[in-house]
């Protein structure tokens, strides 16, 4: 094993980790805001990928050009899920937590079924985009352009999320997270804050979906490949923490890649879960959790 291979694998893991991080960011945001784990998060990723694919097929628009459009679309989807389902489940007077779990879980099953009905079960892929099947070589390290672009866009998206958290709306988000009853007294519309929060979560996963569709296959169950890793990432980074999601995502990507290099690749998730178990044992709130 040469140094070049280790470097190559580490950079590949880092790029994949940035995507894991952005998928996890949306999940973390929603959890931090209202203590709801969105089990349909992977399916939002799948929706974004199919939307990108469909628009690409119909209008020939490159996925990169579609970024703002899909982000907006998924913002709408996130807000609509809040207004249509979550807000209603908040009104339930018993077992609220469980009701929310079941609502999002049911939504995920529905979305997978609906995607299979509408798009069929065939694997799709975008293979004629600007970034498709292109590589850049830096010394001995060869990197797929689509993944490099995905990593950069994910970093930009994180920067945007941090900026949002510093605006007045960000402070309203923070206040609503601290005490959702009290904010009503100072004139903050709780429902509005929550639905925008869900919207931003949706937009984050939407951006990840667009970038993924440049190099990953698209199928009704594609979300589940990423959802499990997103849950681990969120728990690892600390529920509700944006920097936590970023660092944990990169960590997961690196550990996964390096485990696959030194051990049997079929055991690569062992590395991720080993770290997860260790964090749970010694720091149950996650690396950056505030709870």
């Amino acid at each position, binding site marked *: 094993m040469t140094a070049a291979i280790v470097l190559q694998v580490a950079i590949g893991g880092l790029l994949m980790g940035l995507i894991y991080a952005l998928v996890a960011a949306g999940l973390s945001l929603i959890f931090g805001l209202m203590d709801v784990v969105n089990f349909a998060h992977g399916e939002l990723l799948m929706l974004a990928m199919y939307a990108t694919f469909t628009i690409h097929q119909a209008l020939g628009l490159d996925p990169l050009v579609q970024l703002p459009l899909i982000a907006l679309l998924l913002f709408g989807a996130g807000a609509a899920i809040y207004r249509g389902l979550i807000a209603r489940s908040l009104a339930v007077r018993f077992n609220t937590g469980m009701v929310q779990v079941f609502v999002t879980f049911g939504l995920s099953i529905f979305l997978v079924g609906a995607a*299979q009905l509408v798009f069929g079960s*065939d*694997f799709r892929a975008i293979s004629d985009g600007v970034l498709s099947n292109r590589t850049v070589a830096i010394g001995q390290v*060869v990197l797929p352009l689509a993944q490099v672009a995905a990593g950069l866009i994910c970093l930009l998206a994180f920067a945007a999320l941090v900026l949002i958290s510093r605006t007045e709306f960000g402070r309203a988000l923070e206040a609503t997270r601290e005490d959702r009853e009290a904010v009503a007294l100072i004139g903050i519309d709780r429902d509005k804050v929550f639905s925008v929060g869900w919207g931003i979560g949706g937009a984050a996963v939407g951006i990840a979906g667009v970038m993924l569709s440049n190099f990953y*296959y698209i*199928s009704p169950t594609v979300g589940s490949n990423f959802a499990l890793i997103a849950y681990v990432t969120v728990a690892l980074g600390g529920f509700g923490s944006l920097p936590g999601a970023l660092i944990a995502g990169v960590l997961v990507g690196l550990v996964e890649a390096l485990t696959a290099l030194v051990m049997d*690749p*079929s055991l690569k998730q062992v590395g991720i879960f080993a770290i997860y178990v260790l964090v749970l044992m010694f720091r149950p709130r996650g690396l950056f959790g505030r709870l």
Partner: protein
Amino acid sequence: MTGFGCRRLAAAAALGAAVWALAMPPGALAEPPDIIIGAVYPLSGNAAPIGHDAQMALETEADIINGHDNIPMLLGQGGGLPRLGGAKIKLVFADSQNNPQIARTETERLITQDHVIAVIGSYTSATAVTISQICNRYQIPYISAENSAPSLNQQGLAWFFRPSPTDNDFSAAMFDFFRGIGKQTGRPVHTVAIIHENSVFGTDSSRIQSGLAAKAGIKVLADISYQASTPSLSVEAERLKAANADVVLPSSYTSDAILLMRAMHDAGYTPKAIVAQDAGFIDPAFLKAVGPLAEGVMTRSSFALDATKTRPAIPKVNALVKAHDDGKDLTDMTAREVTALQVLADAINRAGSTKNTELQAALKVTDIPGNQTIMPWVGIKFDSTGQNTEGNPVIQQYQHGQWHTIFPLDVATAPAIWNVGE
């Protein structure tokens, strides 16, 4: 016409009908009951595209047996099963979700609720394990259409029948091919790298390939196993690149096959030769997704779409499947599914009954010459473990957007493009 004439005509018609009814043997007026056969496939989840194609293929073959397409193969003339008074085949499908546990309960439901007389399945070998065991418990024949793990017929099950070759035969054909092409071109295979998913299919396949390589004096430079439906195969591709063997031998399902081809490309690695263990690599969805990257890929196959000279039924069956399944040609999978139902229907017909023991006895003495099927096999005859002993595989290569048979040389339709040793 007068009222009287009209009455007389009606009376004559009634008399005629009565005479006709008397002349017919009792029971002939009623249609014979349908013969209900279960099929367990992944109709949702990651393997759903294959399951969907399987459903279309099996329905097409049922239509051929029941209808009047007049195809030059066994039971291709149509009109139902002759020895059961033209009884029609009816298929009931169940969704395994590609999960062995769900496959088990769904098979049990088909047997106890739908009263199927036999089960066909199931694409992945992992689901075939549970399906074949539950069929054995209920003493219902299981026809394994395209499961290729050799261990399946070594379970000691008396109700298991597999017309298709196994990965033993397939892998042996690959190494025969290596020997043949080495002699022909003077550029033999010295090293291979194996990459496989880690369920029954991939694990069995890699074990056999390692064994055959050792026997042939070919060095295995890497044997990489990975978890199916993984988010990334780039490290695996990197390891293959580092090994840089003469031939890469992948055993992968569709989604991973797509990822692997792209990951190797992204790593700047073009293997000298890829000889796949079928599965994902012959899925039309794979070819669509990776596009030009599939050029030159070789795979073992039990079916040759281009063998129309010796198998005259292929064009007609292919046209029917195409019309049924979104314009998709017959593949190695769908051809074996068509054949599995043909073998089962032939046994039911010869048994002249749907009783399980008679059906089992009929299956055991199955003897179908290859030219009565669409497969390039010598024929179909089961040994004591339920394995067909006359199914011989071929090697195909994807050249200029089409699969061509390149080995054995007597059935080859195109010369192999062979870059090893150049």
